[in-house]
Structures are given as structure tokens and as C-alpha cells.
């Protein structure tokens, strides 16, 4: 049937299962080859319902066809909210959220991270948590009024260590 292809150019692509095999090795990626492209995931996806650009089934299809470059450089894998509604309903037990996490991990390793994500990651790996800058005096007072401790005591040494060891720094785009 007709293909919804936005480009007018003729693109040649040789299908290959090497990318899906790469994904299979990642945690959660094992069942990706079971996908029968039935569309249950897209039908259940909240993101798909609010934007036309995102179709989880199509993303899986691209992985299965081996379109590695396109998938890794795309913002689409980062749009998955990991709400897992698709995973609950998929009758072949394909774990889309985990597959997309694996795609993101690979993309990150190769230097493709959206700006918004990078910002949060940098903050967390520096401060140990997300909202150090957001912890204002007013909020400290609120906590005090509620009888809660005000020294939140987050550890920032460990994350620095982890960053060095597992996340190659860098903001390549």
C-alpha cells in the first residue's frame, strides 16, 4: 500500500537485520524481532495521539529494516514517555519502552542527545539531584512549617564518579 514518505527524493535502502540484532543484545530488546507490525502500540500511545510525527510502530519498523543512522539521529526515540501502555497491550510481548531506551543509549554513546535531556543529565550528574537550583528559601520555609527536615543531604560525589566512568562527557550534536 502507499507509503507515507515526506521526501520527494528517491532514497535507496538495503534492509538489514544487524541493527535489530544490536538492539536484541540490550536489556529489554530481546523480543523486537517478534513484532508483526500490527499497530496496537500506536493505537495505545498518548504521544501518537497528540502529534502526527510520532508512530512507535513505524519506529520499530525502521529498526527492523536496519535504518540505523536515521533512527539514531532522530528525535523520535526521545519522545517515548516510557508509560508502557504499549508494552501492556502488545500481544507479542515486545517491550517498546525498553527498546527505545536502548536506542537512546546507543545514540548517546555516539553523541546524539537532545538539548533538553543533556541539560537535565548535566545537572543531575553535577548536583546529585535535579532541583538544587529550584530549592529556594521560600520552599525551605514551607518544609520547616510542615515539620520536615530542611537539609536534604543529597550526595554529589557518587554521581561525579559515575559520570566519569559510564557517561563519556560531551555535548556532541
Amino acid at each position, binding site marked *: *500500500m502507499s507509503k507515507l514518505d515526506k521526501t520527494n527524493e528517491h532514497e535507496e535502502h538495503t534492509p538489514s537485520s544487524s541493527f535489530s540484532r544490536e538492539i536484541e543484545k540490550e536489556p529489554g530488546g530481546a523480543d523486537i524481532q517478534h513484532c508483526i507490525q*500490527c499497530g496496537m502500540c*500506536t493505537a495505545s500511545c498518548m504521544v501518537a495521539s497528540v502529534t502526527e510525527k510520532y*508512530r512507535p510502530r513505524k519506529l520499530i519498523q525502521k529498526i527492523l529494516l536496519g535504518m540505523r543512522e536515521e533512527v539514531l539521529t532522530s528525535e523520535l526515540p526521545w519522545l517515548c514517555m516510557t508509560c508502557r501502555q504499549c508494552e501492556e497491550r502488545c500481544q507479542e510481548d515486545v517491550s517498546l519502552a525498553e527498546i527505545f531506551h536502548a536506542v537512546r543509549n546507543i545514540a548517546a554513546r555516539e553523541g546524539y542527545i537532545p538539548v533538553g535531556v543533556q541539560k537535565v543529565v548535566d545537572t543531575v550528574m553535577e548536583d546529585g539531584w535535579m532541583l538544587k537550583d529550584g530549592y529556594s528559601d521560600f520552599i525551605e520555609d514551607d518544609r520547616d512549617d510542615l515539620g520536615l527536615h530542611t537539609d536534604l543531604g543529597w550526595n554529589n560525589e557518587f554521581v561525579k564518579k559515575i559520570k566519569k566512568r559510564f557517561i563519556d562527557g560531551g555535548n556532541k550534536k
Partner: protein
Amino acid sequence: MTTEREPKSKASRDGTGIKSKEALVIGGGVAGMTAALDIANQGFKVTLVEKAPSIGGVMAAIDKTFPTLDCSACILTPKLSEVAHHPNIDLLTYSEIKSITGETGDFRVKVHKKARYIDEDNCNGCNDCVPVCPVELPNEFDENLGFRKAIYAPFPQATPHIMTVEKKGEPACRATCPAEVNAQGFITMMRHGKYDEGLEIFRRSNPFAGVLGRVCVSFCEGECERGMLDESLSIRNLHRFLADYERMNEVAPVVAKIDKKDRVAVIGAGPGGISCAYQLAHLGYPVTIFEEREEPGGMLRYAIPEYRLPREVLDEEIQRVLDMGVKLVTKTKITSIKSLQEKGFKAVFVATGTWQSNKLGLKGEDSEGVIHAIDFLESTCRGKEITIGKRVAVIGGGDAAIDSARVAIRLGAKDVTMIYRRSHVEIPAIPSEVQDAMKEGVKLMLLTSPMELIVNKGKLSGVRCIKMRLGEPDTSGRRRPVPITNSEFTMAVDNLIIAVGQSADQKGVQTDVECSKWGNAVADPITLATKTPGVFAGGDIVLGPNTVVKAVGHGNQAAISIDRFLRGVDMMEGRAKHRHRVQSYEVDKEGVPLDARAAMPKQGVDSRVRDFDEVELGFNEAMAEEEAERCLGCAVCCECERCVTACQRDAIDHNMKDEVIDLHVGALVLATGYKLFDISEYTQFGYGKIPNVISAMEFERLINAAGPTQGHLLRLSDGRKPKSIGFINCVGARDVQKGVPYCSRVCCMFSIKNSVMCKQHDADIDVTVYYADIRAFGKGFEEFYENAHTRFGVNFVRGRVGGVSQVKDNGTLRIQVENTETVKLMEIEHDLIVINPGIIPPDGLDDLAVELSMDLSEEGYVDVRDTILTPVDTPIDGVFVCGCADGPKDIPDSVSAGSAAAMRATIVLSKGDE
């Protein structure tokens, strides 16, 4: 035939070594029927066993088949007929396999044939019994969309063409009642407003609808299954209503039909004696009741106070018994049973009761002011003048004690205390009586016992009591009261009424037969025969003080025994067996809304303590009907026997029993079919919650002309014709997460067929099928699919539906689906959603596999020996399989498999002589 041959198959158990040339087919669907016919047509005898009341399987419920759109019933019914009439086929329906032992060529099978209470030779399926049956329940054949009766045939072409009565056994109420009152029966009649018929059903067991309706302990209510849900039915008050209703409207005439010669004597006109006479008169025997006192009734008249049992009610019900031709001789005390026998009575029933009050054994018990309960109550009931002081104490906790206390209040006592040595939990009196007594001002002094009577100048002035505590249980199982040291106290009383039980008159006429050391007659617990031939005894005189209904029960049993005795028939036969009592889990309580038990209206406390007018006022018609509606109908068939009256061929017999049939066969064919996946497990589709989301089988029944809507395709929520229908495929099949990873093979074609049926019903309906794949692999399938699309205009969307939700304002249904061909994510509205469930193994297949020592496949189906070379052989020699028992199949494939299995079976049978 040598006996030294080694068995060839595995699991040879208890083979007898004798070969059989007969076959057994288990399952009467299209596959099983085909197998049975092919075996039979080769000249072999075959038994076909089917669980349901009729053969035909699922195919009987289907409207049209794919891909030819043949009417399913049209192609199936000739086969049904052929099976029914084939001389070589023995058809056992409503039957299940109990056990299988043996090996190929020599299987011993026990078949459990459930009683259908229909004489299969006389019944011709005319349906005269159906309109009169008062019990309605959901019709499983119509997927519970419609109703059927307790007596039914599942569909018009049911084979064998006879009815079936669904009766689960004896309901708890009836099983508990000592008089075997058919409570479910009369209550079912009350639901339909048929009070006269309800009363007639009650009167089959005893004549005391009104009397027992006021005084019975109601053992039935303690066991009523409704009590497991909210509160038990007010059974006693319901049959009281029946009696009261008759008194205020038309009284049913009494028919006297005494046509036998053997005379029977009954000694004692209490409830036991009168019931016995009633039953015997019913059978035509001339009965004479001898009563010592001036009027009949026994303790009903001379002990139970009038505010509990108005005398008119008692008189009328006794009179009805007398009107049947029973003679009553009052003021006559029989002192010798032999004298009666010499007078020509061929049988005697002793029911004289226990009237001697037990003594406390305390000094001063014969002083003035001390009176024993039975004497007190009898005097009151006779209307004698009794002086009662202001302060009265009653010793005891049974009904006699309560009655005495409440009578004392009415006679003017100001301060009445009931002293009982155990606690509230152990009080034997009827709980509602205890409540009423307390409301009337009777004080309950529990865990107290009298130890000394204080007498002043020959007159009682007080009683010294001691407090008790409950210790270890005694032989009756109740905790023994133990005095608490130094807890004595004295109570000033004017009168003491002692109600600590009764005993038999040690010099009574019962001593003519063998008695126990307490003076009670010894009688067989079932036949009630004493050791003296022709003399029977029952009621309190045998049991010691007991309940009215127990005496009535004894009266009934004695009548049966006497009748048999007089006819020279064995008295014991068939009487010790118990019918299956319907168990709690057998009664479906799901979805039954909770509803409180009707409360009996009572006279106001202030007015009622002034006189002996009846305290309980009785239900009105609205209350009675509402209460009757709460009955769960535990046994399903209520044995009202209206069907028996309507049947003109004498074909209904409610006493039939289940049978066990032994079969000796050489080969088995398993054709047990399938069941459908429970789609309510897919919460996102809302099946069972959202109206107008239905399953494919429900759809099938809706479009079937013999179905609940006569073939009109309607929305069940509002009766509207749907304008837009969506079919959701692949539900309960090809689903790893729900444990059914395999393809169900038939649902794609099934849904296409149904989508075409929609269009045939109304070409303007917009029909869409949502699918993951279309599997149209068989002969004519692809063309059918193509036609559905091009000729009939069914839309096909490739995309599995994510979920179904209800659109609030207009009651339509909204689905989310991605059309994977256009990559459009759509929300589409339909009037009706039909979900196609996948096929799964049927109930009971795993049990059968255990009997055969056969392993099933991982999905629960029969695993054939080799899917390519021997597709109908199971791993067990001599056992073959066809139809869906080994995996999903459509009708043509099931029929082929049936023929194949038949062939494989007859190869075994042909070798039978080797």
C-alpha cells in the same frame, strides 16, 4: 485368545484381556458425530457420549457457516437425525466419563449419566411442560442473552428430541427440614402470585402451614443459602402468609378418599399423630386418633400460648385433617396397645409426647408458689384461673421457659426474671422469642443457677442462686457451667416456674413396647418401627422433648412405614439414602444485589402484654412477594410438579437417579471440542462493562432466527438497529502475554462471515473489520474475503484496536486504532462492537487426560502422536482424536478428522479377534 500376550501400549491398567469390537466417541459435536456415523456405517457398534443435553456442539448455535454461508442448522440437523436413528449408535447425552481403565482393544469405561428426570421413551419433546414451569434462568445456549425454564430443550432440533430438567439436588432448606417441606417450591409459586399452588405444595409434606408458620424453629432458615449472601429468607413467615391468605380468601376444598380396608390407630393427637393420620388418610387408609385430653393438638393447644398460636388457626388446620375422613376420639386414654390390635387395628402409631415436667431436685420444690412449666402453661391454655405474684422467676432457657415468662407478664407479674445457667450463646429457645420476651420486660439472668428454695410457712418466699462460669464442654458439646465460689445471692420471689425439660410418663402406654431407661420408646431411626411388629412410635415419646417440626417429620415417616408394612413391602428400602444437597458453590450469587430480610410486623409492646392476642401480625402481600423474590432458587427445578400435571405422556419422573453405565470398548475417539477465551480479561475493550460491546457468539445468536431476538440484529442496550459495527479480531489468540500464543485458525474467517451477515441484514450498515492479519488459507476463503470487500462493501482496516471507550452523550463506542497502511491514528465511532474470541481447550479435557494417563500439549490440547503422519492418533494406543480437541479447526477440517479417526478406530476394532 491367549492370556500370555504382552500389552503393546503404555499404561495398561486392569485390562481384562477380553477384546471388544465396539467403540466409544466422547463428544457429540460435528467431529464426534461424523466419527460415530462412520464407525457405525461400517457395522460396528458405537456409543456416543455427550455432556450437554443434546448433541450438535457449537455448530448447533451458529447461524451461517463460512465460506459458503450455508445455514448451519440445515447442514447439521440431518446428521443429528442420522445419529439418533442409527441402529448401531447408542446415544448417551447429559453424560460424562467417570473413569477409563484398560488398553487398546479392551477399555473399561464408566459413564456417569446424569438424571434428567425425563423418561426418554415416553417424552416426545412436545414442550407442553415448558410454559407451566415457574423457574426461569439465563439460557446458556443463547449466550445468556435470553431465558429458558428449568425444564427445557436447548434448541428446537435438540437430539435426542426430549426435554431435560435441570435439578442440582435438594436445596438446603428442604434438606434440613425434618418434615421435608419443599420451601423452594412454594416460594417459587409465591413469586408468581400463585398462593394456592404454593400452599398445595406445602401441604404435600404436612397440614400445618399456619401452625408451623407461627411456631416452627425454622431449621431451614439457618441453612438458607441466601444467608451466605446477606440474610436468609424468612421461610416460616412465608408459608404462614400462604395459610393466612387462604383464610381470608377462598379456602381449598378437602377431598376425602378413604378406600382401603386396613385400619390404623394413632395414639396422641399432637403434631406427630395428626401428621401421620394426614398422610395415611391421603393414601386412603381409615385412621382413628385416640386423644387423652378433651381436644386435639397436644402441646400445640395445651402448652404453646395463644399469643403465639391463635386457636382458630390450630382448629381449622386440624379440622381439615379430620375432614379427610380421619376419626378423632377424645377424652380417651389408651392404656394397652394390644387392646387396639384386638379391636382390629392393623397398625398403631404411638405419639403421646412427654408431658412430665422435670424436677430441679431442690428441697421445697413442692411448696406453694412453685409450679412446673408444663402444668403452668396447660392451666393457662385451659383458661384456668391462676394467681401470679408480682415477682416471678423462671428457671430454664428453652421455649417452655420463654413461654412461661411471657405468660407470666400477661397474667400481671411486674418483675419476671428468667434464670438460665449458661450464656446467651447457648440458649435453646427461638431467638426471636427471646428478643420479644426481652422487649416485653422479661429480664434475662444468665450464667446463674438456683441452689436453694427459701420457703416460709410452706410458701415460697425466695430463691438463692449462684453465679456460674462456663468451663469445659460436656457430652452435649456445650460448655459446662461451673459455679463461682462466694457468688451466692438471694432473690425474693412470689412464684417460681420451673422449666428444665420434660420426660415421658413412666407408666404411659409406650411401655407396652421396648423403652429406654428414661421411659422413651425405642424405635428405628428411619422406619420408626418398634420391636413389636405393627407398632410404630415417633415424636417426643421417642426423642425426648424436641421440636414440633421434628414430630411432624416423624409422623410422615411413620405413615410411609405403616403403608409399606400393611402392603407387606420392605420398609427400609431406599429410605436411608440421601439426595445430593446443593452445595454453596453450586449456587451462583454473582451480581445478586443485597437486600435485607423482611421484618415481621409485631403488635406494639404495651398493647400486647395486656392480653393473649397474637403478637406477630403476618406479612402483607407486597412484603411476601418481595421476600419471595429474594430466593436464590438453589436447586433450579423446584419440584412444584406442574410439569408432571401438564405432561400428557407420563414422561416426567422427579425421582429418577443418576446412573453409572459400564462400557467395554476396543477404541476411543476424543471429540471434546473447545471453549472460547474469556474476553473480559481484556479490560481495555470493556467487555462486560460497556454496553454494546459483545462477543462473536453473542452476535451469532442475535442474527440467528431461532435466537433471543428472532434474528433481528439489535443493540441490546436500547433495542436500536446499529448503523455502524466494528469487529475486533485476534483477541484471546496470538497473545503471548495472555498465555495463548497460537493462532486460533478460524476467527479471521468467522469475523469476515459475520461482517458479511451484517451487510445481508442491512446493506446500509457501515461495517469495519480491524485485523492484524487475514488468514484466508482454505478452499474458497480468499474469494470469500475478496467478495466481502468488493461485493458487500465491508471495510477492512489493518491495525489492532488499542481500546474501546463509551461516548457519553449518544451511547456510541469509540475505538482507537492505527491504520498501518496509511499510518493514520484514528478514533472511530461505532454503534456496536463485536469481539472475536480465540479458541481454547474445553473444561474437563485435563481431567480426561489424567484418566488416560495422557500428557496434553503445553497449550492444553491433545498432543497427537505425529502431526504429519498420524494426525488423529493420540500417544495412547487405541485412543484417537478429532475436531478441536487437538487444536483449533474449522468445520470441514473437523469433519475430515472425524472420518479419519473413525477409520483408525475401526482398524483396531477389526483386529479384535486376534
